[in-house]
């Protein structure tokens, strides 16, 4: 009697997809790395290292792109499995002069955008940057807010896991951008200072009938410079220190009005801050982040919304710890297993509305993510992970992803 061991039906389709992707994409890289004995007649450098061969001058305009294709397979519901071109981004950078340039990114989410589809077309960044000297630069336009580890560096090749972490999507509404002006100072002691004035949130956008505000309180009232109400502005500052190789310690804060002249009572004010650290000694990548947001004067906003499923929270927060290890490399190929533990609460507390009217605090969700990033090259990554949700276990899932950035 003998037993034939086969993959479980659950993992078979995902395993096939992963194996085909890995084999197809890694093949050419491996062939390059394993054939040193017969030197190629022409240089075969990574295209990203050197300027175009023979170019006498730096090109003024550069086209860039990043994107990701994700497959999500809930453990408890195979019928809910989705495959999605989560985002496809085209970037444009044009240098007007040695000291001034234009930077923009245009993003399509979910592949198709029309009146009958769920996709979106968004301008993610569009700003002018001018260098003011060796230390300072200024930006004006639609800018990414300097908050946390992910918001300004959100390409799939630079973070672990198929999906972005929950704390920096549910609490910090990545990719968070505002219209405004910003100054950036980079000092030789390792300090980087960013600060500025920007548009802010609009509390009147809160839809108490939907659950969007439970997923991301600030993500449901951000304006993204789409006819943004600009009666109330925000101010922001971020300070990072990278004075020791491999170490980053920093924090950021934002305070902005969210009434926009529409609220009848006191103007609600949004405050959001974070502390973060990342240590990347050889082969290791360790990170930790805590973020907390508050919205003041929500009682007056919530009173007419009582009875709806999602009232505006007074406080929301979350943190995560993450560890990754570069377990194997071969040429440009790199295998990086990782584990991340995060806890977040999008309704930590609510303003007092009176007996039986004040909502109870939401439960704090815990998510453990275990997975691997497989770098096919510095520009292309294949990812696989398992995410276990503690409170809402129906969300536990297996994810596969393909990402690129150049």
């Amino acid at each position: 009697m003998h037993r034939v061991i086969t993959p479980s039906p659950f993992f078979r389709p995902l395993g096939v997809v992963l194996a085909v992707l890995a084999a197809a994409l890694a093949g050419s890289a491996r062939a390059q790395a394993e054939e040193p004995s017969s030197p190629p007649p022409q240089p075969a450098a990574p295209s990203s290292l050197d300027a175009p061969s023979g170019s006498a001058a730096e090109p003024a305009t550069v086209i860039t792109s990043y994107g990701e294709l994700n497959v999500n397979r809930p453990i408890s519901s195979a019928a809910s499995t989705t495959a999605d071109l989560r985002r496809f981004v085209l970037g444009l950078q044009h240098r007007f002069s040695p000291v001034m340039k234009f930077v923009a990114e245009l993003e399509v989410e979910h592949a198709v955008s029309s009146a009958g589809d769920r996709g979106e077309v968004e301008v993610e960044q569009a700003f002018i940057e001018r260098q003011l000297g060796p230390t300072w630069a200024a930006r004006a336009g639609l800018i990414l807010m300097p908050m946390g580890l992910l918001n300004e560096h959100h390409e799939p090749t630079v973070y672990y896991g198929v999906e972005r972490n929950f704390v920096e999507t549910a609490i910090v509404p990545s990719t968070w951008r505002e219209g405004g002006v910003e100054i950036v100072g980079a000092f030789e002691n390792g300090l980087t200072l960013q600060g500025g004035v920007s548009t802010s949130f609009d509390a009147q956008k809160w839809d108490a009938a939907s659950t969007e505000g439970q997923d991301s309180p600030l993500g449901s009232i951000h304006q993204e410079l789409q006819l943004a109400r600009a009666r109330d502005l925000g101010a922001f500052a971020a300070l990072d220190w990278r004075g020791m190789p491999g170490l980053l310690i920093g924090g950021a804060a934002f305070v902005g009005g969210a009434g926009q002249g529409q609220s009848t009572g006191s103007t609600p004010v949004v405050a959001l801050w974070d502390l973060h650290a990342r240590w990347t000694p050889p082969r290791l990548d360790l990170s930790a982040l805590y973020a907390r947001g508050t919205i003041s004067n929500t009682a007056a906003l919530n009173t007419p919304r009582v009875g709806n499923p999602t009232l505006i929270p007074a406080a929301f927060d979350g943190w995560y710890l993450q560890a990754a290890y570069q377990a194997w490399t071969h040429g440009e190929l790199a295998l990086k297993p990782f584990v991340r533990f995060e806890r977040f609460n999008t309704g930590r507390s609510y303003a007092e509305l009176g007996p039986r009217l004040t909502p109870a605090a939401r439960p704090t969700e815990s998510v453990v993510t275990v997975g691997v990033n497989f770098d096919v090259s510095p520009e292309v990554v294949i990812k696989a992970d398992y995410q276990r949700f503690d409170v809402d276990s129906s969300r536990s899932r297996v994810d596969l992803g393909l990402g690129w950035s150049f």
Partner: protein
Amino acid sequence: MRWDRLRVPVAFTLVGPAALVSPAPVFAADYLTADQAQTLLFPDADRFETATLALDAATSAELQSRLGVAVKRSWELRLARHGDALLGAVAADDVIGKFERITFAVGIGTDGAVRGVEILSYRESHGQEVRLPAWRKQFVGKTAASRIEVGEEISNISGATLSCRHVTLGTRRIVAVVDALRARGALR
């Protein structure tokens, strides 16, 4: 008129344009000239001689295979001298950071060990932390036998991954080229 009604236009019309049109030195992203860099890398030198040296085709191909990057055959080196004694060589090169060119210089002593790395020009919006002295100091003492790779003997900088990786690759290439020239006695 109340300040409430003025603050938005004041903030955007004064702060933004003021920042964008304020005086800035020409080529503000150029931090050092090659002449300044060579003096920083070899402060004991009393003169520098420019020499154009060429790798033979086989050596260039061998380095390319080993390093996994293109290796041109002709290199312009600045030879640092004190009196008649050769102290080492300085090579400047360009790599692409994320989107734009980074110009850097590497000083290498006659023993083949890196004396230092200087960033001459940096124009990216992010990743300028490769200019930090503490990060560049990691290269000092490295030789062609070292593992000059991010994640091995060189630590990454969070938020500047591509700039770190490419400056490191570029430095590794210069170290290998100068080592090959030393081996055949071309540095005199």
